[in-house]
């Protein structure tokens, strides 16, 4: 994940380059380091460097990394001719390379010839069955073809070996949520929280899934995770504030009649409501009335 300072730095560089201030190479390096997906800009500025022979030779051995980066960006923007040219140059320089083989596979994927791409990837995997990127590309291909169950199967097999790869867990969680398999999604989010406990995004997503699952116990746990999200984000996350209000009223509804569980945090709901009102007053004052009526209906 990209931290805030890195993001501001990236945006600053982008503005600088957009307004003709130079520094395109630093921008491209930063994009590559942070693995951000800004394909149009990468394509534009990368091509401008590559087409200028003076600038190209100034890069030295980094030139080939730039070719690879521009090829991938071109595929993302569907400029397949640019991709083909870049791959041709790379293939001439590195004839037996696995990285170039991977780029070829990605080009087949971009063109939509799934069977050939699958063949290319399997032959690459035969040489090195532990190549993480190729495994992930196969999952992406299955997902792009709409074959979600195969994507899940491939991803599970991948995670059996590489179980410390949190990006893969995140992808699996999102796929499960899209298929409404919430229990499995909850498991994946737990893995994510375990590996990175201070990222509020995972707490929030986990709380959402638990709230959707329903049931008194899950609602209570969800409330706690919304609270932890509020704590981790300093109260600025609107979704968590809404989550608290909804959870508390849902718990009240479910446990109507049974004796109320000892309120660990009785004021949390009212505090969250007040915080929401304040936030809306600042940012979207015209919707404040909608908010107050919705909150009033919750506090049954």
């Amino acid at each position, binding site marked *: 994940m990209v931290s805030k300072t890195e993001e501001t730095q990236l945006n600053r560089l982008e503005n600088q380059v957009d307004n003709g201030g130079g520094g395109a190479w630093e921008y491209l390096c930063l994009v590559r380091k942070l693995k951000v997906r800004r394909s149009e800009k990468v394509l534009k500025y990368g091509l401008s460097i590559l087409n200028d022979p003076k600038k190209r030779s100034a890069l030295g051995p980094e030139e080939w990394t730039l070719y690879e980066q521009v090829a991938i960006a071109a595929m993302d923007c569907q400029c397949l001719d640019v991709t083909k040219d870049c791959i041709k140059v790379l293939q001439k320089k590195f004839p037996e390379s696995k990285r170039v083989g991977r780029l070829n596979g990605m080009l087949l994927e971009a063109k939509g010839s799934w069977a050939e791409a699958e063949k290319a990837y399997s032959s690459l995997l035969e040489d090195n069955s532990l190549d993480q990127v190729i495994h992930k590309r196969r999952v992406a291909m299955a997902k792009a073809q709409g074959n979600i169950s195969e994507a899940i199967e491939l991803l599970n097999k991948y995670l059996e070996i590489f*179980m*410390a790869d949190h990006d893969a867990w995140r992808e699996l969680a999102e796929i499960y949520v899209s298929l409404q398999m919430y229990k499995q999604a909850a498991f994946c989010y737990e*893995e994510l929280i375990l590996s990175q406990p201070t990222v509020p995004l995972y707490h929030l997503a986990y709380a959402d899934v638990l709230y959707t699952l329903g049931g008194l116990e899950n609602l209570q746990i969800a409330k706690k995770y919304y*609270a932890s999200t509020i704590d981790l984000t*300093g*109260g600025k996350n609107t979704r968590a504030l809404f989550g608290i209000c909804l959870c508390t009223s849902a718990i009240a509804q479910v446990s109507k009649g049974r004796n109320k569980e000892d309120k660990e945090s009785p*004021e949390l709901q009212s*505090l969250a409501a007040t*915080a929401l009102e304040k936030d809306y007053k600042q940012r979207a004052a015209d919707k404040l009335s909608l908010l107050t009526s919705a909150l009033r209906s919750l506090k049954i």
Partner: protein
Amino acid sequence: MAEDLVLDTAIRDWVLIPLSVVMVLIGILRYFVSKLMQSSQLPDPKIVKEGQVIVRARNLRAAANFIPPKSFRSRRVYFSNEENGLLFVPKGQAQNAQAQMFSDPNMAMDMMKKNLSMIIPQTLTFAWVNFFFSGFVAAKIPFPLTQRFRSMLQNGIDLSTVDVSYVSSRSWYFLNLFGLRGLFSLILGEENATDDTQRMMQMSGFGFDPSKSLGAEKDGLDIVQHEWALPKFEHRAEAVLKKLIK
């Protein structure tokens, strides 16, 4: 016995400096040869998987207090249960890590190549030094030594009355052998194949023993007491919101 021998400066010009220069050059040559001969070793899938299992188990131990108790318990059982827990290694397998290292042909070849690249230049240089540069006093060590060192340092010199501080060129060779490591790391960067002494130390205690670390992780996991931190967060969230509203 304590007279000062005056050594010819020609010794310095024709023995000490050429010997050092030759050793530096041989070191650089070895570095490049080892780079050429380096076979890309395919990572063993089992070892990769074990490495990842250990990372995951470590994460579980570190952040155990962030997930609900039920999930933690089910994960702990998954990792350490007797039959097919990931971290559980039956006693018999634990010992054969070393045997495995030797029987795996690729690893054995790699080790042999590394050893050879270390032993052959050393032997050759040593023989060359002995052949050409023996039979005379090469240098004087600046501090006094006991008689015990005579056999080690004065090998070619057959006079028993010469002060032990006067050494033969063989000792200069050994001095260079161990001392040029620092120079090499300056010239060649950190990763160079001339770290003979380091490798010799590594050979005695075998490096990556996966089963032991798995066992260690399992013990660590068994010890962990789960104390769910989330209820605390509710109070903290209250405090945060109160501050925010003010």
